[in-house]
């Protein structure tokens, strides 16, 4: 078990399987809000579902409409259980806040491997 400490963007608790990428994610256009499947061509996570996962990625990118895509995913029950970023930016930060998805950044992402069971508790990230 390893415990990491980051910065709270949206406070909350969640536990789940880690889905990890070193590539930024564009939620608008890059993720299907109805299924939670990553659509972006050539993305490391193309074809994978983010639903109920602890989604680990460096930061967001693309259109500011991406904030609303996260909100839509939450309403559709396709959103990740929590998100972890290296250094977040406004699109995903605002998306997490309006959708109330637990969200931490300033975490060393290299510590988390795909498939790890990860618990997010406010600023704490615990790898079980």
């Amino acid at each position, binding site marked *: 078990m390893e415990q990491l400490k980051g910065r709270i963007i949206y406070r909350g608790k969640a536990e789940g399987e880690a889905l990890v990428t070193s590539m930024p994610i564009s939620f*608008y256009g890059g993720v299907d809000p109805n299924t939670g499947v990553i659509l972006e061509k050539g993305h490391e996570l193309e074809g994978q579902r983010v639903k109920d996962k602890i989604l680990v990625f460096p930061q967001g990118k693309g259109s500011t409409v991406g*904030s609303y895509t996260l909100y*839509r995913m939450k309403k559709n029950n396709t959103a990740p259980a929590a998100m972890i970023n290296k250094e977040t930016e*406004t699109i995903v930060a605002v998306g997490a806040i309006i959708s109330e998805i637990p969200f931490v950044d300033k975490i060393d992402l290299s510590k988390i491997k795909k498939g790890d069971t990860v618990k997010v508790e406010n600023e704490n990230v615990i790898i079980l």
Partner: protein
Amino acid sequence: MELTKQEKAMLDGKEGYAVKKSMEILVALGDIFGAEKLIDVGSVQVAGVSYHNLGDAGLDFLNSLAEDGRVKVLTTLNPAGMDLENWQQLGISPEFAEKQNLVIDAFTRMGILVSCTCTPYLIGNVPLYGEHIAWSESSAVTFANSVLGARTNREGGPSALAAAFVGKTPCYGLHLDENRVPDINVQVNAELSRLSDWGALGYAIGKKAENKIPYISGIKKATLDELKSFGASLVTYGAKPLFYIKDITPGAELQQQPKETVTIEKTDLDDAYNKINDQVDEIDFVCVGCPHCSIKEVAEIADLIRGKKVTSGTELWVATSRTTKQLADKHGYTAIIEAAGGKFACDTCMAVAPLKGRFKALATTSAKGCFYSRQNLMKTKMGSMKECVDAAVTGKWNN
């Protein structure tokens, strides 16, 4: 970030859900970008209005905020996905119109002016020099920062709304003197003779000054319409939403010319035209007004098209604010343009209307318009107002 007692109360929900959510957004952004405090804003411009971009999720979110959210400062709205009155004539489906109207209803309940324009500074939302504002819509942000000398970051839809409900924004980025210093000196040696040359210039500088603030020399004069078009292109193609033009824009005299220098020659403008223009002869869509046409531009179109006819199979749209069109109605410009078969597209524009697949090839004066129309799978041609009107009349682009 330091919060006052009143701000803490807002964050704790004392002023209701919308204000609480807004404070959560503003505090998070303030912390992410290292702001020390919130500052009062004089006005807000809210983008994210087209149902095409919002979808049902965005609409749900807006409705949840509209329950108890009321704006505290002058707040204007970006273009919607359709002309709110004339949508049928522009080929918008009734299903889309119904949803778009629900979006507009939500904004209206919040106390936002349904201005539906990307040029709020032409219709009464005019910030003063040095005034802090929270605007979204990159072209308006660039105009406000550069031509008016107001101060705003490039907000997204939700963060602009949040600023409107709280009346404040976190103080970071372009609100601070130290972040408004130009990074790169741009010497313009090319002549600018038509409106689209300013779009080409924005493209050329945007590419050379990616994510930088340009300080531009060598331009002797500029009009409001030219600067409006230039700023929209500059920020679309890569620069920060702030520029200085020596002896033209306010505050340029307070800045030192940066050491790093690039030049813009005629070949750079030619190259911009080559990148923006596709190989295409037949034009089925002519759209002028990205950013929205000023009354002067509407008058110019009326003058060029008087007594002519838009050819069958081609549409001509004049995108402008409803406020500007009312003036055009009064002065007979509308009658001239409509008699020629042109259509007004008020409240909307080619960047946010649901146009994917409807047209094959666009002619426009706007470099920004070309960028967004490519996403709608159109070929694009950029040229002068006269070249665009000619294309509407003949259905062809004459090189």
